[in-house]
Each structure stands twice: as C-alpha cells, then as structure tokens.
C-alpha cells in the first residue's frame, strides 16, 4: 500500500516570520527606550511601564482567550506593543503619587485605565487585531490627555536618577542643548526623551524589515522641511549660511524633542492603521509630520502627535484607494 501524502495549494514553503515573531520583535526594538527611560526617570518609569504592559496583556487575554489559559497570557505580542508604547508615552508623574499632591490611587490607575481604553475600546470594540482603524496606544493616550490634562502635562521629573533640573519640557520653551535632547536627560514622556534609544530601535526595525522607511522618512522629512520654511519666515538670521545653520538647529530641535521620533518610528508605522501601498505610505508619513509641526508652531495643543497620527489614520483607507500602483506592463 502506498503512503498518502499531505496535499494543499502552493506555495509549499512559508516565511517563518508570523505575527508573533514580528510583534515581539517590535517589543525588542522598544527595549533601548525602556532601559533609557528607567535610567533617566527611575522607579516611576519602571512602575508605569510594568502597569501599562501587564494590564494591556491582561485585557487582551480576557477578550481573546475564551477559556483563559495562563499559557496564553503573553498573547501574540500585539497587546504587549500597545501596552509598552502607551506606558512610554506617559509623563513620569503618572507613576508617582507625590506628584499630584498625595493622592494614592489616581496616578497608578492612570496607566491601567489607559491600557483598558487602548485594548478594549481602541482595539476590540472594532473587532480586534487588524480591524481597528486607529492606533490603540494613541486612543489610550488621547483618552488620558482629555481626562487628566493637568496630570498628563505635568513634566515634573519625579524620582529621576539623572539630573534634569527643570519641570518644563524643551517644547514649552526651556532651553536644552541638542546633546541633552539626543541622549534624553530632559523632562518629557518616559520613553520619548532619549532620541538615541529610539533611533537604535528604529534602525533595528528597518534592518529587520519590519518597517518601511517611507513612513518615518516622510514624517521626519516633512518636519525638517517645514522647520526650514518656518526659520525662513522668522527671518532671524544673516545670509545663506546663517539661514542654513539656523534652519538646521531648528530642524534638529523639532525632530529630537517631544514625541516626534516615537511617533515617526513606532506610532505612525503601526501596520493596521497605516496604508499598504508604497506611495500612500509616503504621503501618510508626510501628512503626520506636517500636522505635528503645524500644531507645534501654530496651535500649542498638548497632544500634537496624538492628533496628527489619529487624523492620518482616518485617511488611511482613502489614501490606499487613491494610490493603487501601476501594475506590471500597464500603460497609464
């Protein structure tokens, strides 16, 4: 008798990279920012990140596994990405009770509440992974900003190990050198102050092919170009050389400060909520960067990145539809 074999459609080999592999690799790429955050902000950071990460995993686990098995707690990695991103985008004050005048419960509940909103409303209300139109971490962040505006803009560098002398972020007008911005010893959100750590993670993601340069490239490119335009209109420089150096200073400042890099590398590149055609990805990236810098210059809203990315998320389906590529051999 002859042996019967497995049959099925071609191709008969598949890439070993499945969803879990990719998502956990994104978590790996966030490790430098996590470490930087703990070095710079101390225990406040460790507490906030653990709370947001574990609660995100917990809510995902509740929804996804019908009969919750402990082994399934870590899930496919997508909730871990959301929880970690959310935690890294919160101000250090959310981890320290002292920072809001002695209230014990509220600040610690903040990361948990944020994760609940991110996972339950941002993701599963729309049908779960792959179906959500908006980046869940930003939905969570947006919710917290609206609900706890003072807390969410309290940049008191509580519990820091490294000396950051002022409570205002560089974007709020305090001077910080480009070097300080680069390594991250300035006030700001837990995981967003160290440009260096974010860039290391970004290079890793590009190298592994998990993100396309078009989104961060368009995002940061738009910010750089607009920084130069803005400098030009401000007119406080002498000659071409003066313009170039003033413009460069401004561009570097804009890119390195606040949540620009976090947004460009990790938030805007979220697969589910960004477009799938190459051209649309570039346009989408540019759109995010442009909206962010326009808000910074002209609107002074505290959550520029959240608005910018969520707005472009909404445009994603349209962008895809308008940019269907010319197929091979097609004469357009």
């Amino acid at each position, binding site marked *: 008798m*002859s042996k019967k*074999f497995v049959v099925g*459609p071609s191709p*008969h080999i*598949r890439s070993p990279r*499945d969803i879990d592999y990719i998502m956990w690799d994104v978590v790996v790429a966030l490790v430098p920012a996590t470490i930087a955050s703990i070095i710079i902000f101390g225990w406040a950071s460790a507490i906030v990140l653990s709370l947001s990460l574990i609660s995100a995993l917990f809510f995902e686990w509740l929804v996804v596994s019908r009969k919750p098995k402990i082994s399934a707690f870590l899930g496919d990695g997508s909730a871990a990405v959301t929880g970690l991103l959310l935690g890294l985008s919160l101000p250090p004050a959310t981890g320290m009770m002292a920072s809001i005048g002695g209230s014990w419960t509220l600040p610690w509940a903040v990361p948990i509440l944020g994760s609940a909103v991110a996972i339950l409303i941002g993701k599963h209300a729309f049908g779960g992974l*792959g179906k959500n139109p908006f980046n869940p971490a930003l939905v969570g962040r947006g919710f917290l900003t609206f609900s706890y505006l003072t807390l969410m803009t309290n940049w008191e560098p509580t519990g820091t190990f490294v000396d950051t002398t002022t409570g205002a972020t560089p974007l709020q007008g305090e001077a910080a050198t480009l070097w300080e911005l680069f390594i991250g010893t300035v006030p700001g959100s837990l995981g967003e102050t160290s440009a260096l750590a974010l860039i290391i993670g970004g290079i890793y993601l590009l190298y592994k092919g998990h993100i396309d340069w078009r989104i961060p490239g368009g995002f940061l490119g738009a910010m750089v170009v607009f920084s130069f335009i803005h400098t030009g209109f401000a007119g406080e420089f002498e000659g071409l050389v003066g313009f170039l150096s003033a413009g460069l200073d401004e561009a570097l400042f804009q890119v390195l400060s606040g949540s620009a890099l976090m947004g460009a590398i990790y938030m805007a590149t979220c697969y589910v909520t960004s477009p799938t055609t190459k051209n649309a990805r570039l346009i989408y990236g540019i759109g995010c960067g442009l909206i962010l810098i326009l808000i910074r210059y002209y609107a002074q809203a505290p959550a520029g990145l959240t608005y910018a990315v969520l707005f472009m998320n909404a445009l994603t389906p349209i962008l895809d539809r308008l940019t269907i590529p010319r*197929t091979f*051999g097609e004469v357009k």
Partner: protein
Amino acid sequence: MEKRSFKGGIHPLYNKELSEKKQIDVMDDPKQVVIPLQQHIGAPCEPLVSKGEQVITGQKIGEAKGFVSAPIHSSISGEVVDVNEERITIKSDGDNRFEPKEARSLKEISSQEIIEIAKEAGIVGMGGAAFPTHVKMKAPEGKKIDTVILNGAECEPYLTIDDRIMVEQPQKVVEGLKALMKATGATKGYIGIELNKPNAIEAIGNAIQGDSSVELVTLEVKYPQGGEKQLIKAILDKEVPVGGLPVDVGSVVSNVSTAAALADAIEEGKPLYERGITVTGNGIEKPQNIIVKVGTTFKEVVEACGGLKDNAAKVISGGPMMGRAIDSLDDEFITKGTSGILVLTEDEVRLVEERTCIRCARCVDACPMSLMPNYLAAYSRKEMFKEAEELHLFNCIECGCCSYMCPSKIPLVHLIRQGKAEVSSKKAKK
C-alpha cells in the same frame, strides 16, 4: 559582478546545497513506463500504437492533434501493454534499442527545418508549463522576434537541475540557443543566470567566448527571477504589456534544459523522451540530480534515490513555490515538464492556522507584478469580482510571493487563483 533585477520578489530559503554539487546521474531503465497522452498543455495526443505492438526507444507513439501540442515518443523499447484515452503503457524488453533519427548540423539547416525538427522531437518547455517549443518559435502575424532569452535563473528553491545542465553541458545549451535564434530570426541571444550559480556562470561564459551575438547576463538572486516577465524586465528592461506575451516586446524565453534538448534533437536526432530532474528535500534519503525516462513512476524515481525517510510528509512535483502537491507516488508519472520531485518532512509542513490580515503590506511589497494581493484575495473571497478585476486580478502570475511572506498565513495566491477561475467560468458561460 553585475546583477540585474526587477521590482518586488522575495528571498526564500533556497536549500540548493542538498543537490547542487551532485553530478547528473542516469537512472536505470524502469521495467515499465506509463506515458501520459497529455503532458500539461495543449490538446492530448492521438495514440499511434496499439496493444501488443513492439516499439523502440524514441519511436513516436502519439501524434500531436491540436496546434498547441507536441508528439510523444516511447522512452524505452518493449511491448505496448495498454492504450487508453489518457496514457500508453509500455513494458520494457530490457534492450533499450534506439535508432536515432538523422543527425544534422545547425549550420546546414534552415529555420523552417529547425522548427520542423523541434516539432517532430516533441520539444516542449521543460521549466514546468510544457508549452510546445515549435509553436513559440513562430511569431504571430505582424510580430517580429529579435531576441531569444534563455532562462538559467532557476529561481525555485531546492531545484538544481538547470544549474547542473549548464555546468555539465554548456555547449549544448549554447547550441540550443543558437538554434532558437536561427529559427526565430533573432539577432541577439541572452542567457540569464542568478549569481548563486558561479559554476554555471563560468561554464556558460567559456562556452560563448568569441560570439558577440550571445550575451551572458548575471542576475540578482531573487524569486521569481526566472518568471518570463521578470526575466525580460531584468535583461531588456522592457515590460510585457498586461495580457500580452513576450513576443509583444520582440522576445522569446526558453529554459536552458529545453535548449539542450533542442540541441540533442538536431545534432543527435534524439527526441525528448527523457529529462534531467532534481530529486531533493529533507524527506528523501539521497538528494540528487538524475536523468529519468518520461513515464517512470515517481515511486521508482524516489526508490532510485534511496527512498523516503520516515518523516516524509509532502511530495511536490516541481519546486516549492509553484509546484503541485501529489497524494501518492504510484500514479504520478514523470512528464516532459517535471522539473523535480521535492519531499518535505512533517516538521516542514506543519499546518498553520490562518489569522486576520494585519495590513502589514508585506504581500504588496513582495508582489513582482505590482499588484495588491491583500485586496485581491479579500475581494476574491467575498466574490467582489468586479473590484478584483479593476485591480488587475488577471495580471497575477501566481508566483506565490504574497502567500510566502504573509505573517498571518493567509493563502493569498490560492484565493486569487480561485477568483480567476470563477471569473473565467462566468465569462465562459456568457
């Protein structure tokens, strides 16, 4: 070295090392062959022999009926024991008697004669599709062929037979190319080889020395570099129009093994009744390259290569990207289009559960035809065929890059293929 390429494509694990260094062996004659009357494309042949008749190796036993068809020949000498609509069964007499047809020299024959020889010898494309070569050589009314491209890319993972043919018989490959050029009236010939085949590059390079009408082009190692349209794009930088054929850009593409077979037909008077294949995979005892007679059962070929390992789980006729999974070794026979037998193990074929699309765009970036496999598959699944056709459903070459890359393991090319089939059958009904 120069590496020409095309946009899109993937870098799967090649696994060529299992067999790439193995010299081509010749398999002992099987006791019996079962020769299918229809070998993949075109109309089936009309049998020329009847039960009880004695035949010799290379004797024509089936005549081509339709235009897009090629005759078939006996691959052994012996007695015809069965003839039905589908196949002719011949029992070997063990002599393997062969009387070659008249051998010719390429210099002294006309282009018409080359086409005639190719037709009589039953030469078809040996890369997989088995399209009759004599049909390809005639340009349709109003079109002109100026370039012949030989596909030596062998971009399917695991397969190494074309590589070995180029290494071991470079002269034949080049002769075959010259014959194709003469028959089509082309003035320029190219042989495209991927950079992972340095020995083939060297051998072919030596064989074409001093001949300015033929050029060796080294190609980036990328799947599907050997796809007709991708090869033309890489070598000539021309795009075959949507729905068109290579001849629309003045070229003909043929496989290196086909060229060698054509050279054999001209210079040795030998019809196409045997071919080299790669028998490989982690599920086979002795992976190798081997010449087998058309009509041999897969079972005998596998046995000649040491047999299956205990963990063998899936057998594929052809390569892993575009080949066909078969369910039994007994009633599957080597045809002119069989390029390999690949045996995968249990570990390699573990079933994976399909998940939802996470819109990662890996399929979009991989598609060598610049399509949107994510949308095409979703539309096909939801039977939204109008939308799928607007996104050029029929320009898909079914290379499988999209399915390979998808982290959610969505069977994209399968869904697209089903979509195409449904649309075609709807159109046929109208």
